[in-house]
Structure formats: structure tokens, C-alpha cells
């Protein structure tokens, strides 16, 4: 004990000279992700702007809300539910679409932009590995965007519900609104959808875009899309089949359990695999994840060799 207390006064000087100088990987990851958010403010500004737009639109639409509620109450319970929930579902879909587009543009530029503006030479002068950098960039579509979408959507839907019930306060229909719109249930469904579809099912999309971004010298978006088109056309001409196109369609529009089977009815349930069990055991999910992982590994290797363009 004594030796310890004796050693303390010396430690500040000592530590300055022979500091172990270790920064945990998690801290480098944290700063790398923050760096992405500094550079790409559209990650949160775009969904916030869309949310503001939705709220303004909704506020205007509440003028007719009492009439609509009365009309809805005349319908049978299932239709009632659907009609009353519709603006909330629409808001969620719009926000998901926004962050999907943000994600695509982000990924296409993520590993090309730093080479274009030569800043890669600055990033590489710091002790952050290519693996950390690529993973921090991948975390945007895989983790950050789903979380941002979730948070913005839940808050937007909450405000919509409050605006709606405030408007209905006079007519005594507030209670009906709360009875039909279950914010908690919608949020759980939304989170499940974001994790299952946006992060996991679309993983090969994000992996592919990041890979092309690491590889292409210019026009990354064209390199990401045109080869897929070319494969589809080649297959059609050579074999008169369209398995490749069907596969892409299955990946983006469908999914296990026929994700987009619902014709014209828009609801979250119709866009999400029915049960987590079926989803997690579908080979398509795991093939996609393996493809995404391969793309990221290739992206890390490419970044090692890449120079400014």
C-alpha cells in the first residue's frame, strides 16, 4: 500500500514520458462514426426535413379530421383501423424512403469521396486502420440510418397523434383516435421492419455500393447499377431467361414470405417478413449477409491499395 501512495506523485511525469498510449478500438470507432456524421449531415437533416414537411401537411389535413373520424366510425372495425392509421403508416414509409435514398447516396460516395478530395492521405496519416474506417462507414446504412429513421418516425408519429387528438378534443373523439392508433405497436413493428429489411435483408445492397465506391475512380453510381443491368440483358439475350432480374426484384421488392405481396394496401405488416423465425431461417438472408461481408472485406483491402484520384 505504501509503495503505491509513494508512486503516485511521480506518475504524471512518468506517464507523459512512457505513456502506454493506447486508444481502445471502440473509441476510434466512435470518433470515426462521428466524423461521418460531421461530413454527411444529410443523414439526419434529410429525415428531419421530411418529418417537418409531414407535420405541416398533417396539420393542414387535421382541418377535416373530425369529419373523417365520423366517416371512419361508420365502417367495419378492420377498415376503421386501416383508415385511421393510414397517415401514420404513410409518414413512416416516407421517412424510410428518405433514409433509403440517403443511404444509397452515402454509400456510393463513402469510399470514393475521400480519394477524390485527397483527404484519404490525411485519414491515413492517423492510426485508424482501414478496417475501422470501412466498418465505421458501413455502420451508417447498417446501424445509424435505421436508428435515425426509427427515432424520427416515432417522434413524428407521436406529434401527429398529439396534433390529431388536440384537434379532436372538442368533438370528444380523442379517445377513439388513441384507441385505434397504437403508437407502441407501430413502433415495435417499425423497429422490426428496419432491422429485418433495411439492415439485414438489404445488406448486400449496402455492401455492394460500398465496394463499388472503394473501387471506382469515377461515376461510382453508374458502376454500381449498369453492370447489374448488363448481366440481366446478357442473360435475357443468351438464354432468354430472367433469373438475375427476378433475383434482384426478389431482393428489393420482395423477400422471404413475399414481403411485398400486398397489392394496393399500404401497411407496415405487408412490407415485413411475417415471423422472425421464418426470416432468420431463410437461406436468402444468409446468402445476402455473406455477400455483404465479402464486399466489405474486399472494400477494406481495396482501401489499402487505393491512392487519391
Amino acid at each position, binding site marked *: 500500500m505504501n509503495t503505491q501512495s509513494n508512486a503516485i506523485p511521480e506518475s504524471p511525469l512518468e506517464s507523459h514520458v512512457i*505513456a502506454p*498510449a*493506447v*486508444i481502445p478500438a471502440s*473509441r*476510434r470507432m*466512435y*470518433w*470515426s462514426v*462521428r*466524423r461521418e456524421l*460531421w*461530413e454527411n449531415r444529410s443523414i439526419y437533416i434529410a429525415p428531419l426535413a421530411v418529418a417537418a414537411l409531414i407535420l405541416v401537411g398533417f396539420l393542414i389535413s387535421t382541418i377535416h379530421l373530425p369529419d373523417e373520424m365520423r366517416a371512419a366510425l361508420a365502417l367495419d372495425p378492420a377498415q376503421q383501423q386501416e383508415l385511421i392509421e393510414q397517415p401514420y403508416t404513410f409518414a413512416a414509409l416516407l421517412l424510410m424512403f428518405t433514409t433509403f435514398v440517403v443511404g444509397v447516396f452515402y454509400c456510393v460516395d463513402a469510399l470514393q469521396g*475521400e480519394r477524390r*478530395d*485527397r*483527404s*484519404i*492521405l*490525411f485519414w*491515413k*496519416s*492517423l*492510426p*485508424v*486502420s482501414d478496417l475501422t474506417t470501412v466498418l465505421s462507414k458501413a455502420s451508417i446504412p447498417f446501424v445509424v440510418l435505421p436508428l435515425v429513421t426509427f427515432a424520427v418516425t416515432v417522434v413524428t408519429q407521436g406529434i401527429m397523434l398529439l396534433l390529431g387528438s388536440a384537434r379532436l378534443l372538442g368533438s370528444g373523439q380523442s379517445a377513439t383516435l388513441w384507441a385505434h392508433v397504437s403508437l407502441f405497436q407501430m413502433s415495435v413493428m417499425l423497429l422490426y421492419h428496419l432491422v429485418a429489411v433495411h439492415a439485414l435483408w438489404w445488406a448486400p445492397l449496402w455492401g455492394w455500393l460500398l465496394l463499388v465506391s472503394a473501387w471506382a475512380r469515377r461515376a461510382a453510381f453508374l458502376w454500381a447499377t449498369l453492370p447489374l443491368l448488363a448481366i440481366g440483358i446478357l442473360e435475357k439475350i443468351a438464354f432468354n431467361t430472367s433469373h438475375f432480374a427476378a433475383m434482384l426484384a426478389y431482393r428489393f421488392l420482395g423477400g422471404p414470405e413475399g414481403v411485398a405481396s400486398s397489392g394496393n394496401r399500404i401497411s407496415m405488416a405487408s412490407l415485413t417478413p411475417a415471423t422472425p423465425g421464418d426470416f432468420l431461417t431463410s437461406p436468402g438472408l444468409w446468402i445476402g449477409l455473406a455477400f455483404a461481408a465479402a464486399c466489405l472485406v474486399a472494400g477494406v483491402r481495396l482501401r489499402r*491499395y487505393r*491512392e*487519391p484520384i
Partner: protein
Amino acid sequence: MACIEARGLRKAFGTTIALDGINLRVEEGRILGLIGPNGAGKTTALNAILGLTPYEGELKVLGRDPWTERDQLMRDVCFIADVAVLPRWISVSQALDYVAGVHPRFDRAKAEGFLAKTTIGRASKVRELSKGMVTQLHLALVMAIDAKLLVLDEPTLGLDILYRKQFYDSLLDDYFDRSRTIVVTTHQVEEVQHVLTDVMFINRGRIVFDCSMEQLESRYLEVTVHPEHVAAARALKPMQERQVFGRSILLFDAVDRHQLAALGDVRRPSIADLFVAVMGNQAGQAQGAAR
């Protein structure tokens, strides 16, 4: 331990040979100037040292293989690859936050101290700063990192003379102590002359001249020869002869000073004079070989 040690370092881009079997050894605590014409292989050599490009041959930087052990190496090595590589969107305070967040040897207070001497505002973004200010910012970040090796590739390219002078002055006054090693490439030979402890000339992928500044000062002499002694001076096999205002100036390697003093006015050549002489001889040899 040598800071940098290379044996038979080779790098080819397709059929173009950028590094043609370089051997070099840089001891700890030196300031080496790597000087060569465009396309001589300077940047390729630095990229190999910094683990930015794979290479053939043997290379150890601080005892590590820069290509396979790059992640560990970068904790002890820092570099300014070029001016204007700081991302344009980053603000000064973000740059400080980020480097402090990821670099174990970054001393934020020191960087703030360097910045306090400039007119750079904390909230400004890099895109709003002048080229000279961006370099000041980059230098402030780099000098606050307690690195064992600092590599500067044309750090002052495109800067006006005030910033260039300031750059090297602060590098010497505020950064360099005898335990650090600095490698710098530049075109502006005259400006680094007083900074360097060692100088290497590189041409067509080879080191063609390697000398410490002490050696350089004792070995090489330049004589403005009196017209009547020109023949005698030429007999001593000068490295190079040139004419200035009708008088012959001859550059000698390892010829006794007293002997030369009898022939004319003796003075120390600048690195630039030596560079021209060495490169001129190289070109001559190449032409001779071609014939």
C-alpha cells in the same frame, strides 16, 4: 537502431520502374532532405516508407515492416503528404476533436498553443481558410503528435515565401528535438539547406548522392578560378564547370582547400549547386551509355 533501413527497395508501375533497388539508412534524430527532379521516385519512396504502397525488397521503419504492420506503425509515424489534403468540410475544432479522439500521442493543448499564434478561428471550416492557413493548421495538428518519425512530402508547395519560411522555422524551433527523425522532400532546395542534417539526391529510382551536411561542407568546394589558372584547375578533375560573367566556376569533391585557394576564390557550394552538378553528371553518363 536506424529509423529507416531499406535494402534493394524496388517498385514498378507496369513497365515504369519507380524505385530501382534503393539502399538507404536514416539514423534516429536526423533531418533528411530527399531531393530529386519530378518523377524521380521521391513520393514512391515515401509511400513505401509510410506503408501506403506495397514494394519489393527489404524495408524496416522503426523496426517494423510498413506494409504489413502499418496500423501499429502509424502510432509512431506522422506525415503531411501534400498541402490541401485536410478535408474541406471539417472545422478547426472538429479536426482537433477527431485527432485527439483517435491518436494516443496527440497533445491537444500543444496544438491549441500553436493555433493561438495564428489567426485561424476555431469555428472556421477548412474551405474558408487560405492555403497558407490550412498548412498552418495541418502543421499544428502534426507537431502536437509525439511521433518518432515525421515525413513531409512537398509540405510547402504552392505557399508564398513568408509561410514557407515560417513553416521550417517552427518545425525546427517547436518540434525538432534530437530524438525525432524528419524526412522531407522539396523542390525548393535553398530553403531547406539550413534545416537539414543529411541530404540525398534521387534520380530515376536510384539514390545518386547521399551525404551528411558536415561531410558536404568539408568535402565539396567551389572555386571561382582566375583566368590564368583555368587549365591547372581543370587538371584537378572538377565535378562540374560552369561560366558566370565570363569566369569559370569549378566544383571539386575532396580536393585540398589550400591547393584550391591558390587557383581562385574558394567558397562552399549550396545544395542547389551540388544538385545541378550531380544531376548534370548523371545526364552526361546516361547520354554516354546511350551512345
